């Protein structure tokens, strides 16, 4: 079955004829270059500022779990682990929810219901993160402690993921808070992506006798795949970098714990928490190195995600089965 091939991308490269075009070209190039320079400058500044810590700890910084500002021993492993695990948890919850909601809004929902829901989704995206954090402490954490964690512990307690005392506060709470914060982003962007899929795609699939679900799966989701990955990456970016809401519910304990009930810590949180009062040079350098590491982790995770998309068939390509 061959479904419609995507519109081929034509490189439009008009030769600059007049002065206006040339000026525009220079200005736009400068704008693009500035962005690149900014990123480079950030990396250089962070490497420079974190040099004392790099010299003192070397690669040990990445594998050590000790974080002792008094003895000036610093290791980033618990923070890297906490950032990755909390973001992974968030995506596990938010991706099915966000893309599901987007499919409903773009494909299935009756027309009158779409604007209010879309409006509400965007409203949720605008709530400041400290509000989520407070809500997390006062509503979510007690809820988890009294209801969710005891039940999880009883039914799935044989898994090391669900063991230990139920504090409410901890990795699970952080993952759920992040998921709630990320869902509106994924939903809003995915919805736009799905709406941008040309109707000819759907018509062609339907004409070939596909059901509603088959049409959505083959003609719509596949077509918009790279856009959907973009939506997920946007959410992931927010989850990796989120500071305030996470620090309020994660328990801020620099430990690598398997259990989701245990408290943890993230890179963004420790920088926000300790930067203002970090007086010694080595301490400050270690915190900046954490910032650099967060930068690196974000780049690597994004690159891996893009690679994943390319490896399963490229962004937009003729789809044949």
């Amino acid at each position: 079955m061959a479904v419609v091939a995507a519109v081929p991308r034509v490189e439009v490269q008009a030769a600059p004829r007049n002065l206006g075009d040339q000026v525009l070209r220079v200005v736009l190039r400068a704008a693009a270059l500035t962005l690149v320079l900014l990123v480079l400058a950030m990396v250089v500044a962070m490497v420079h500022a974190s040099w004392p810590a790099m010299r003192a700890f070397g690669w040990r910084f990445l594998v050590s779990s000790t974080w002792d500002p008094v003895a000036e021993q610093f290791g980033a492993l618990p923070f890297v682990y906490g950032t990755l695990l909390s973001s992974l948890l968030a995506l596990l919850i938010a991706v099915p929810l966000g893309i599901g909601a987007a499919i409903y809004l773009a494909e299935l929902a009756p027309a009158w219901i779409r604007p209010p829901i879309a409006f509400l989704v965007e409203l949720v995206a605008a709530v400041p993160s400290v509000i989520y954090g407070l809500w997390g402490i006062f509503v979510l954490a007690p809820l988890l402690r009294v209801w969710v964690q005891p039940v999880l512990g009883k039914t799935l307690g044989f898994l090391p993921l669900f063991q230990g005392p139920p504090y409410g506060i901890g990795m699970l709470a952080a993952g759920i808070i992040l998921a709630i914060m990320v869902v509106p982003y994924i939903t809003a962007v995915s919805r736009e992506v799905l709406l941008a899929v040309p109707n000819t795609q759907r018509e062609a699939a339907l004409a070939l006798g596909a059901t509603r679900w088959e049409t959505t799966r083959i003609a719509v989701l596949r077509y918009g795949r790279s856009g959907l990955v973009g939506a997920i990456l946007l959410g992931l970016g927010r989850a990796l970098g989120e500071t305030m809401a996470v620090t309020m519910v994660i328990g801020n304990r620099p430990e690598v714990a398997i259990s989701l009930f245990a408290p943890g810590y993230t890179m963004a949180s420790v920088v926000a928490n300790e930067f203002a009062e970090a007086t010694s040079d080595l301490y400050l350098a270690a915190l900046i190195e954490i910032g650099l590491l967060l930068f690196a982790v974000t780049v690597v995770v994004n690159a891996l995600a893009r690679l994943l998309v390319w490896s399963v068939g490229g962004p937009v390509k003729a789809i044949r089965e």
Partner: protein
Amino acid sequence: MKTAWIMALALLVTSAFAQPAATQTLINGAGATFPYPIYSKWFDEYTKVDPEVRFNYQSIGSGGGIKQVTARTVDFGATDGPMSDEQLKAAPSELLHIPTVLGAVVATYNLPNSPKLKFTGEVLADVFLGKITKWNDPKITALNAGVSLPDQPIVVVHRSDGSGTTYIFVDYLSKISSEWDKKVGRGTSVNWPVGLGGKGNEGVSGQVKNQPGALGYVELAYAVKNNLPVASVKNAADKFVTPSIASTTAAAAGAAKSMPDDFRVSLTNPPGDEAYPIASFTWLLVYRDQPNELKGRALAKFLWWMSHEGQKYADDLLYAPLPTPVVKQIEAKIKQITYQGKPLLAAR
């Protein structure tokens, strides 16, 4: 709509220029967050005393305050923990510590019916070291005869952000427990042996409120404002003292006799029957030799005012005022502030 915006903008711009900029001295400061409420009250009230001087204070944290005053990007710094000898050496010229008010740190907890609890420093240290894990541990029940304590794990809650509050608390534990001193030590952030971290006083108290069996520490002012249950703590004179503004001032009075000349003193566990043992000064950092005569004189005058008239605002904002003997010592210190070797305050 658009014109309204432009009008508002124009108004803003003209009013910014309309300030009598020529005669006003602007003094910049940065540092500790803990005393920020009273500092902003003082800076506001002081404009009535001397309309020529305006203060601009950024509460960026003690660490930032020390850094900025050392780099001379601000005219004065503020800190909750005294500067170390190395930090003082790194400064371009001699820095003075001027105590402004006192704060205290209290232990707060979540137990059924919020009973009044008593602690000793040793027991607090053992709990925060993870050696005492249950509320009905004999070491706790022995101090609290008549209170029925549940067979429940103690959930320790501490500050996750670097903070002077943490410094005061662990400074006290370090003085009381040699094990704490060796294993953990003192600092604005430490490597906590057990417990959950909460961001800010509100984060700690939020977790304590929502976690049955929790025990945490917060500033006295925060605990009083929010009606949190607080524990009395045994002081150096073997008396159990309830934390309050009076017992905090008493801590400074107790330490006044042995006050070092530079005021860099830890007030935790001081002598005195009435003294609450987990208390501390907060300081302003000013250069002894001021680089600018006008600003230097204004700053010295302000310091004099805040250590005298200014102290009456402390109570309302739940800070403990300086005890009289310490104010006398501060007077001598303020008179030492100079510009090119000449004292800035005439003899009073």
